């Protein structure tokens, strides 16, 4: 059940996007997310959709796998759509009881829905095509100028990568302890909310103990290998830009320009 969450998961395959430098992908995701808020009309969506669809195609990740990630946020999506549908003032389309649906409401709701879906898919393309290690490497490198103003960039990146690598380990551990306690008659499924919380104690105590034990072991292992933070530390595979990364930046710049210019130009033509 915990395994069904695909948000933030990596999908192993071979594609241009997988090989792209993580910094390009980080930048690309950022640009795409911002670009979604730069337009207000239908034409903008066409440009964004074109971009997104071609990225999905390039990533070679099955589309069904990508949409699975949306399941986790479906409730959030529905709430947003409903609020926008009913709470936008404007020209009434239908009205019943105390609720009115307006023409503007329908538009905003639809736009909002697509915007959210695009946000989620756009960012999951990055995580699906980048290993957690690669991602934190990219972040560390991209943010490294900040270390001049005493931001502990390396430490933050290290914390992130440790946290990420612990997620599957702790999930496994949870599964094991849960089963072991169920073998002793523990019940995690029935009862009211207070009972259930109380029943979690036999799961949570061993889980915390094991997390601390693992953390302690890891800290020792790092110290034993003379880890002392980021200063002067080199990498086995330092990030280097290739030609394809340059191409990536160019495509991004073109996309950004397009999403700013195209909707405005189209608007002007229609107004005339």
């Amino acid at each position, binding site marked *: 059940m915990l395994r069904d969450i695909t948000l933030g998961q990596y999908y192993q395959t071979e594609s241009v996007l997988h090989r792209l430098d993580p910094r390009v992908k980080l930048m690309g995701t950022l640009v795409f997310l911002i670009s979604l808020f730069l337009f207000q009309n239908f034409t903008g969506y066409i440009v964004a959709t074109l971009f997104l669809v071609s990225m999905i195609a390039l990533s070679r990740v099955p589309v069904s796998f990508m949409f699975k990630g949306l399941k986790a946020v479906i409730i959030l999506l529905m709430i947003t759509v409903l609020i926008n549908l009913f709470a936008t003032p404007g020209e009434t389309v239908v009205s019943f009881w105390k609720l009115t649906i307006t023409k503007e409401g329908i538009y905003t709701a639809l736009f909002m829905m697509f915007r959210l879906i695009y946000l989620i898919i756009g960012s999951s393309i990055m995580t699906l095509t980048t290993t957690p290690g690669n991602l934190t490497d990219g972040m560390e490198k991209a943010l490294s100028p900040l270390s001049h103003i005493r931001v502990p960039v390396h430490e933050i990146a290290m914390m992130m990568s440790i946290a990420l690598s612990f997620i599957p380990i702790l999930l496994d551990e949870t599964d*094991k*302890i849960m*089963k*072991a*306690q*169920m*073998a*002793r*008659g*523990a*019940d995690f499924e029935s009862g009211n909310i207070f009972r259930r919380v109380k029943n979690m*104690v*036999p799961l949570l*105590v*061993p889980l915390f*103990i*094991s997390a601390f034990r693992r953390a302690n072991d890891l800290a020792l292992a790092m110290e034993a290998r003379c880890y002392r933070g980021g200063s002067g530390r080199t990498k086995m595979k330092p990030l280097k830009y290739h030609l394809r990364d340059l191409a990536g930046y160019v495509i991004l710049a073109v996309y950004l320009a397009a999403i700013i210019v195209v909707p405005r130009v189209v608007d002007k033509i229609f107004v005339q």
Partner: protein
Amino acid sequence: MSLIVNHVSYYYNRNTAMQSKAVDDVSFVVQDGEFIGLIGQTGSGKSTLVQHLNGLIKTQEGQICFNGEDITDSDFDLRAFRSRVGLVFQYPEHQLFEEDVFSDVCFGPRNLGLTKSEVELRAYEALKQVGIADESFYQSPFDLSGGEKRRVAIAGVLAMKPEVLILDEPTAGLDPRGRDEILSLIRKLHDQNNIPIILVSHSMDDVAEYAVSLLVMHDGKLVYDDSPRNVFAEHRTELEEMGLSVPEVNKIMHLLREKGIPAPADAITIKEGVEACLEILR
């Protein structure tokens, strides 16, 4: 008591691209009072198989019958059933959570809905059985030694008075002394309680010493189901191909035979090996 496993198969990630078979068409019978050894390499499906036996993993294919009742039936009460087949997991000390040893052992029987006095009686009996001294009862379980922790965890399962006891690699990660303590405890439990025991292990010496019947798993399949003596004597080369081996004593016997000394090929325990050597020297 009878436990029948009938053509059980299990897939990980079933019906996805990453589907892999963990247990492949396994059938065997556990009889009253039997001591069964289950061996196989890491990843051969041993742990997955034993989790089926008390319903922690739902059977995907095949049936498991306990005393004539099909536990794979949808209306079978699995929660009540789990206490009847005691399963001690690998590294069972990782499941300890209470403030003191005694309360932790009480957890199992308390979940059965017994009265307080009955719960405490069972916990006391179980702790005595695994040889924990009275003065340790109210210590934190985390202050005990590795071997003691494991015995407390085993007591936690014993206190539920299971009708079958399954132990998944009970000696993993212990020093030789802790290992011997656990193994002699398991033998004592078998002799005293007269319940069938399934010992999952990858130590050939342990199963040769204790098991009456031996199951060998490889790649999810049950390849041999025979007495340890027959398995080790007849399938030596096959076992080695699977990445398993025969007991050390048996290896010595074979080395002696290669040198032309008439050692018995079917000696598998240390006792048998010693007797055979004395016989040769005489």
